[in-house]
């Protein structure tokens, strides 16, 4: 059972990583949701013992590698975000779907905000408010996944 769960966690993370590696360009690039963080948040809700801050940090390193930035930026952003997710994990499972959406949005937003702060330290310019669009598309993807029947923890009591 545990073995199975581990497998599905890492397979889904790998799938999210490949989604990230797609040759996005132009508008799609500005709209691209952070698949990796979405999958991590999902597993934080469903299997917090198997997927935790360490996993998020590790996957963040791979995202850093793929984006070609300085090592540790995404890792730090994911670490802090998952920290907030883990703290409120028990409350989160009780949330209804709207509350959950707001919560997921704020998590995505936090990760982008941390990245923005890190990039500002590296003397990069703010890209305008469209920079935060991936948070919104991320929530949309989350909602679509929920509508399609993905169990995001709220109904997990039956299992």
């Amino acid at each position: 059972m545990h073995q199975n769960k581990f497998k599905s966690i890492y397979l889904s993370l790998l799938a999210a990583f490949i989604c990230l590696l797609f040759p996005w360009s132009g508008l799609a690039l500005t709209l691209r949701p952070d698949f990796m963080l979405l999958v991590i948040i999902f597993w934080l809700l469903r299997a917090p013992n198997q997927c935790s801050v360490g996993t998020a940090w590790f996957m963040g390193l791979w995202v850093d590698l793929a984006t070609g930035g300085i090592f540790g930026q995404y890792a730090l952003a994911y670490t802090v975000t998952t920290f907030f997710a883990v703290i409120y994990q028990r409350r989160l499972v009780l949330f209804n779907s709207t509350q959950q959406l707001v919560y997921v949005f704020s998590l995505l937003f936090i990760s982008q905000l941390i990245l923005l702060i890190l990039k500002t330290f590296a003397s990069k310019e703010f890209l305008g408010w469209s920079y935060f669009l991936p948070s919104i598309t991320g929530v949309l993807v989350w909602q679509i996944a929920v509508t399609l029947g993905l169990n995001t923890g709220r109904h997990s009591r039956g299992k």
Partner: protein
Amino acid sequence: MMQGIHHNFDQQQAPAFFARGPSPLARLAFFTALSLALMATDSRLQYLANVRESLMTLLHPLQVVANAPSQAYRFTNEYFSTHHYLLYENERLRKQALRQDIALQRLNLLSLENTNLRNLLQANKKLTETSTLGEIMHVGRDPFTKKIVVNRGKNHGVVTGAAVVDATGVVGQVTRTYPSSSEVTLITNKSLAIPIQIERNGLRAIAFGHGRDNTLDLPFLPANVDIRSGDRLVTSGIDGVYPAGLAVATVSEMKTTPDSPFARIVCIPTGGIENHRQVLLVSIPRTEVETSDDSAINEKNKPLPVTKSGAGSLMPAANPNTKPVQDSSKKMTPGAAEQNPQKPLPNNQSAANASE
């Protein structure tokens, strides 16, 4: 109600109250410290370059998998492209070839003439650049930096610092090489500067990427500088990175404000930074530059001792006797000697030598 909540807690396999390892706060502290240490190491020291390279090799198969759908789509698209389109393209290419043939003939003549003149001058031979054709794999994923990744890397002889050019102009410069791919920073990136020359009047300047929108800036030029909108910027070649004479950008806006001593000049890059797939990676062999430089110095050291200073070389050479003096100027400023082969000869000199 209360019971329901308790029921919830019992059933979910989420945080058990025992055996959950270190607290989230401890984990946060640990991994944050680790990330910060990594960032510091990566940005200040060079230790991680090799690690990154080997990890990128690991990542390559995944990248190929991720690229497969779009590649397949393009392939089928090309395969089923219409007869009409092919005919049209064939026609267009034939016309283009004809036009370029004529230009090429002129070029042959000119390069022949140029070689003759250079032989007369005993100047360094113009460097031949090595170039590799690459295809853009994907646009950089970091929205803060303007980068692209091309499918040629160290295994194909690409070196960091190579200029990246497409059919219409300069695109950027290779900033990182991996075994089978390399990262190109576009000229519109804020941190990239490119030495340019105004085609109309030969004025030299340095263009910087603007960073946010796809434009270039020409900063720190006085308000009365002779630049108009519509001027074409070409590479000056004095940096030893970009071959001279490549199109870079067109001036689109030239503004002067009374409160600033500098003009605000905005240029639009001519290279298809966002829309082409094939690019050429051009690298100028650095070692050859040095050796030819050294030989020039050695040759020069053997014959008559240098008597005149560099000032003498400023005068146009009217007879063969002044040649060593010109060489001496090269020796005294090795940097200039390195740049020299890139630059077209000043008109008066070549004219003087041609008349001999």
